[in-house]
């Protein structure tokens, strides 16, 4: 998995590439922890995310609790399917 961060004052974009599963989910958590404290709005760019398991979803819930604002962008149909299975599509700001 590859993570690209882009910080712009109070908002930040994290692009996640590849597979987000049990073994890679902590990397995303760590990347979020390393953001400056004044970042309040986070965008997760999932355009290059190929796979997500429940471990990845757990990490997203954790980010959702931590950030004031969290949005998900550019998720593929396959990824959106997993969001739908778990009802995430109703609770998250998915664009």
């Amino acid at each position, binding site marked *: 998995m590859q993570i690209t961060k882009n910080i712009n004052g109070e908002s930040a974009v994290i692009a996640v590439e590849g597979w987000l599963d049990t073994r890679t989910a902590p990397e995303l958590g760590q990347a979020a922890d390393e953001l400056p404290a004044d970042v309040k709005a986070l965008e997760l760019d999932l355009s290059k995310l190929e796979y997500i*398991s429940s471990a990845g979803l757990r990490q997203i819930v954790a980010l959702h609790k931590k950030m004031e604002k969290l949005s998900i962008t550019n998720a593929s149909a396959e990824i959106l399917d997993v969001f739908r299975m778990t009802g995430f599509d109703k609770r998250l700001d998915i664009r």
Partner: protein
Amino acid sequence: MKKAGREKKGSVFRSIAAVFAAAIAVSCLISAFVGSVSGAAEIRNNAHEHSAEAAQIISDVINGRGGIETVFESNTTNAVPIRKTLEFLARGYDLEYLYLFTLDEENDEYHYIIAVSCDDEQNAFLSENRSLGTVVPVDDIPKCVVEASHGSEDADIIHDNNEFGNVIGWAYPLDMEYEGRRVLIGAEYLVSVINEDILERVLILVVPMTVVLIGAGAVMLFLTHRKIIVPVAEISEHMRKFTENYGGKKEKIDITDNNEIGEIASSFNKMSDDIHTLIADNTALNEVKLQAQIQLDIARRIQSGIVPENLSVIKPDHSVCAFARAARSVGGDFYDSFMIDDTHICIVVGDVSGKGITAALFMTMTKTIIREMLKLGITPDEALNRANDEMCQSNPEGLFATVFAAVLDLETGVLQYANAGHNPPLLLKEKPEFMKTEIGIALGVFEDAGIVCESTSLKGGEGILLYTDGVTEAVDKSESFYGTERLLKACENCRTADETVAKVSSSVLDFYGGSPQFDDLTMIALFRSGSAGKKLELLPQPDEFDRIKEAVTEIIGNTPLCKKIVLACDEVFTNICSYSGAEKAFLTLDGSECFTITFTDDGIPFDPLAPREEKDFDDLDTGGMGIGIVKQTASSLTYKRENGMNVLTLSFNKQ
């Protein structure tokens, strides 16, 4: 409804009758008008003549009696015969007034000499009031009277409407003078009398004519009704019945008149007969067609039993997948796949010359013979040569079949094959390539086909694709061929039979687009499996998931379904690793009907299907979604505790 419709319909007879009645009425009116005009003219002429005659007669009588002065001497009876004569004339001519007078132009006065009437009452009145010497001043003396007093005999008619009634009359000069002025005779008719006269004349003219016209009209109408209207109505009724009941009862019109109507009737009868026959023929033909269609449908169903459209078998050590689509109801392509024994699998593909039922029958025979031969356990070349001998003996139509047959030894990977005039198959190794085979003669043509056996070997993950020319010779809308390059490209990186057939068939079908030149399309792929498909022994560690992923991808191919299965396996295996405390776990994969994956672990008993409380969204970061994902991904899910092990089986439908 019918009745109302028919009541609304117009009637030719009624129209004709109305025209007739109108014509009679118009001719009556015209003759009445002509009659009245000519009658009026005639009566006027008569009246003129009558007054002239009366003038002549009176002149003669007066002159015969010694002249007017003598006749009208005061207090004599000389005037009595004159009065009698005038009265006689008035009655004879129906004159209301007949009188003699002179005109005093200077004083604008009528000087009456004598006046009579045909009516007794008027007569009495006149002898009192218009006696000899009565002077009547006249304000507006008619021009005709003035003209007559100057001797004109053609003075025009005068019309008066006064105390003496509505009259018309004439003034006519007599050839004598009285008291020095020209004597005039006045003759007047009552207009009502004249009108009665005219009416009488008109009636005499019109009534008989009307009677004659009505009589003639009635006869014509009667004949029209009987000779035209009734037969036409009968024909129309028969036509209506005929159109309501095509092909049912025959309609025959019983009119034999030797005229136009009779011709129409006989033409209708012939047409009715012809259409009846045509419909009967057509119905029979349709039934035959329907029967043929039913037979063809049955044939298609039988053929789809012999050559199913789809076949997919996934075993631990191999996978087979096939696709067949006939261009028509039934086709001449076929494929076959069966186990010869526990370690030998056979695949065959063939293409029979010709199309339709003939080809389908020959195909069935070919397929059966080849299968029987191969099942004997002989090499594919021998099987095809023997099949050829059989087919040559029972092939009156001279049909032939190109066939490729291959037998794979699942233990050694040795692939033996024989080619009877068929397209070269694709060998699917690191890179797909066409096999270079000795091509024998197609089956069914010559007794000695001389088909030879060749062999190669397949490692795990390698396979072979057999196909018919419907693949490479597929034609798109611009009439170019699918060809070998596209086929090679479609097969790139395919590692299972399912994946290969799915990619090639969709590539060919996409290429066809809506092109009408669709040929029979048949392909079958056989792959030898690697380690995947067999039982995997796993350590309950997250890193072991890579092995599961590889095994699933290898057996299923890189398809969207594969990712779903991987996700479900991920969730199940993560649970085993995280919570079960298991020391070992096993996984088996099978894919003959649907993909079935079984996880076995020696951890604490855990039934993922047991109902559990739903978590709030914000608590999901502690887990609890995995089982939900598995339940929604798998087509079916079963759990059992067996010999101290958790056994969880997931099934996935192939579609």
